[in-house]
C-alpha cells in the first residue's frame, strides 16, 4: 500500500512542496490553508508553552489526518539552538498521545540521503526522478518568491486597486495544477506578461517598511493576517529579505553567518539561535537604506526573537525609525492587529513626510 503523505502548511511555498511529492510519485493529501479552526484544534492538544508554529503544524496535520493521511513529512533542524530542533520528536509524541496512529518521517540534513534511499526502495522511484523533482521544486520556489517580491512593489503603486492580488491569486491557483516543467515555463512567461501589464503610478512617493523577524510568521500570510497585503492597501511598500531561498543559502554557505556577525558586532557578540542575528542585521540595513519603518513579527515566546527584541528597540531609539513588534499566537485576534497596524501606518506616513521636508 502506498503511503498517503501530508505536511505542514507554509504560505505559498506549500504549492512547491506539493509539487515535490507529486513529482516523486507519492500520493499526497495537501494541507488546508491555515484557518482559525485548525489553530484552535492544534492548540488544544499541543503543549501549552510551546511556540506557536508547532501548534499550527499540529492543526494542519489533524485536518489532513481526518481526510485519510497516514504519513507526515517534517523537516527537522539539527543545528541551531532554538526549539525547532525538537519539533519532530514533540510532534510525534503529541500526535501519538492524542490517539492518531500516523507515521512520522523526520528528515534532517544528516539522515536526508538515507531516508531518500529508503523512500526510493519502498516506492520504486528512480534516481533521475528525484533530481528532476528537486529541480522543478526549486524553480517553483524561485518563481513564487519572485511573484511575492513583485507584488510588494506593485501593490502600493497600482492604478486599479486590487489588480495585483487578483493576478497573484490566479497564478497560485493555477500553479497547483501544473505538473510538468514545460508547461510551467509557459505559465511563468504568461504570468510575468500579465504582471508587467499592470498600470502603475511611477511618480508617487511611497513610504517603505521593512519586515523582519521569525521566518515562519514572516512568510506565511495565513498566520500574520496578510500583513503585506494590508500594508499594500494602505499604499506602503513592504520589503522582506527573509524567505526560504535565503534560509537555504545560509545553510549551504556558512560564511553568510560570519558576515552577519561582523555587521552586528556592536549590538550582539554571539549567536542566540534561530534567525536572531539576521533580524538585527536586517533592521540595521533598513535604517541604512532610509526606510520609514520596521515591523518585527514573532511567534509568542520565540526564544531568539524575544532575546533580541531589546536590541531592536535600542536601534529604534537611536535612529528614530518607527518600530512595531507583533507577537502572534492562538489568542491574537485580527481586530487587535488591525488597530495597531493602522496606528503604525499613521506614524510611518508622518515620518516619511517629515523626512522629505
Amino acid at each position: 500500500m502506498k503511503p498517503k503523505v501530508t505536511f505542514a502548511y507554509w504560505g505559498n511555498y506549500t504549492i512547491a512542496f506539493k509539487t515535490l511529492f507529486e513529482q516523486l510519485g507519492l500520493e499526497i493529501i495537501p494541507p488546508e490553508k491555515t484557518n482559525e479552526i485548525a489553530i484552535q484544534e492544534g492548540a488544544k492538544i499541543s503543549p501549552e508553552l510551546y511556540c506557536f508554529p508547532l501548534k499550527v503544524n499540529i492543526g494542519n496535520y489533524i485536518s489532513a489526518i481526518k481526510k485519510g493521511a497516514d504519513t507526515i513529512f517534517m523537516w527537522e533542524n539539527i543545528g541551531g539552538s532554538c526549539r525547532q530542533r525538537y519539533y519532530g520528536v514533540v510532534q510525534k509524541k503529541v500526535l501519538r498521545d492524542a490517539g492518531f496512529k500516523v507515521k512520522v518521517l523526520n528528515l534532517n540534513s544528516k539522515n536526508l540521503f538515507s531516508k531518500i534511499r529508503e523512500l526510493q526502495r519502498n516506492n520504486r522511484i528512480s534516481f533521475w526522478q528525484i533530481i528532476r523533482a528537486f529541480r522543478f521544486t526549486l524553480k517553483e520556489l524561485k518563481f513564487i518568491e519572485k511573484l511575492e517580491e513583485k507584488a510588494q512593489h506593485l501593490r502600493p503603486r497600482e492604478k486599479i486597486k486590487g489588480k495585483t492580488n487578483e493576478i497573484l491569486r490566479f497564478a497560485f491557483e493555477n500553479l497547483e495544477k501544473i505538473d510538468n516543467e514545460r508547461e510551467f515555463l509557459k505559465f511563468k512567461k504568461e504570468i510575468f506578461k500579465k504582471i508587467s501589464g499592470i498600470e502603475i503610478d511611477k511618480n508617487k512617493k511611497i513610504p517603505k517598511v521593512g519586515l523582519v523577524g521569525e521566518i515562519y510568521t514572516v512568510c506565511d500570510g495565513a498566520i500574520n493576517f496578510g500583513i503585506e497585503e494590508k500594508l499594500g492597501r494602505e499604499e506602503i511598500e513592504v520589503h522582506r529579505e527573509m524567505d526560504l531561498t535565503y534560509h537555504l543559502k545560509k545553510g549551504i554557505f556558512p560564511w553568510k553567518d560570519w558576515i552577519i556577525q561582523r555587521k552586528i558586532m556592536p549590538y550582539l557578540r554571539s549567536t542566540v539561535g534561530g534567525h536572531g542575528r539576521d533580524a538585527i542585521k536586517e533592521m540595521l540595513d533598513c535604517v541604512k537604506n532610509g526606510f520609514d519603518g520596521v515591523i518585527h513579527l514573532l511567534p509568542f515566546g520565540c526564544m531568539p526573537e524575544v532575546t533580541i527584541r531589546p536590541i531592536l528597540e535600542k536601534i529604534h531609539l537611536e535612529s528614530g525609525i518607527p518600530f512595531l513588534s507583533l507577537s502572534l499566537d492562538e489568542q491574537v485576534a485580527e481586530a487587535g492587529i488591525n488597530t495597531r497596524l493602522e496606528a503604525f501606518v499613521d506614524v510611518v506616513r508622518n515620518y516619511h513626510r517629515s523626512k522629505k521636508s
Partner: protein
Amino acid sequence: MTIGIPRALIYWKQPHFWETFFEELGFKILLSPSTNKEIVEMGVKMADPETCFSQKVYWGHLLWLEGKCDLIFVPRLKAVAEHSFISHSRFARVTEEKLEYCPKFFGLPDLGKILVKTPILTENFDERKEKFEKTLERLGKKLNKKREEAKKAVKTAFLNEKELKEKERKEKFEKTLERLGKKLNKKREEAKKAVKTAFLNEKELKEKERKDFFEKINSKKSKIVLISHPYNLYDDYVNLRIKEKLEKLGAESIFIDEVPTKEETSDKKQEIWPKFHWEFGKEIMEKIQEILKYKITGVIEISSFQCGCDAVLKEFVEKEFKTKKIPFLYLLIDEHTGEAGFQTRLEAFIDTLK
C-alpha cells in the same frame, strides 16, 4: 575595585565559585541580596514582557547593582564539551558532545549593556573553541605522520586518559579563567591560585551534599523530588519557599541536582527522550534515571513562565514519571504567583500521596 555579581540565574549554577575566584584575585565582591519583592518589580518593569521570569529576576539584580560597584560580572556561558564513553559498538570510542546552555544566556552581556550604565565584565565560556584533538592531528602532520595514524593515536590517547578527562576539562576552564584574570591586570600565578581555592571550596560543598542526599533518601518521611533549574530551586523568593512548605506538611524534599550521577553512559535510552543539546536537559534526564532507582513518593516540577527549554523538557519528564506511575505535579511560577494558591496546590498534592 569592587565587582558586582548578581545573585540570580547563572550564579546558582556554581554558587560560591565566582566569589572565591574574584576574592582570591584581590577584589572586593558585592553580591546582590537574595531576591525580594523590590528586585522582582524592578526587573519586571525593565525587561521585555515575553522573556522568562528567571531572566526578569536577573535584570532586577543587575539594576540593583547599578552604580554600587565598578564592574558587573555577566559571563557569557555558551557551551560545555562533555565526553561520553560508548562501548556498545564494535569499536569502543569516546565521543565528544557539545552541549549548549539556553540561548537566552548567550545574549545576557549584550542586553545587560543596554540596561545598565556600569561597565560589564564578560568572557566567553565556550569549550568548543579550545579544542584538543585538532591540534594533535596537526602535530602528527608536522612529524610526517599520516592523518589516520595521528587520529588513531589521538583515539588511544583519549582512551587511556579517560580518568584524566575530568581534570583536563577543568584545565580548559582554568585557561579561560586565567584570561579573565589578565583582563583585570592580575598575574597568571595569582589567577591560578584563585582558581584552585575556588574549586576546592566547591568540592567540599559537593561532598557534603552527597552525604545529605543519602541521609534524606533513607528517612521514613514521604520523599518528594523537586525538578527544576538551580536558579529556581535555590532562590527562596522565586520558588515561594517550597522547601519550607513541604517540610511543614511533613515531607522531605530532594533537589534534583543533589542526586549523584554515575560516570557510565550508554545510549540505549535514546528512544525515550531525544538527544538534548541543552546541558541541563541532558543532566536532568540522566538524574531522573538515577533517582528512579530509589523509592520516591512524588515529584514536583517547577518551571518559570515562558521558559522555552522547559516547554520541551516537561513533555519528557512527565512521560518518564507517568509510565512509572509516580505522582507528578507541574507548577508554573511568575511574578503574579500568589502564595495562597501555591499552598493549596501543594497541600492537595501531599494529600493524594497518602
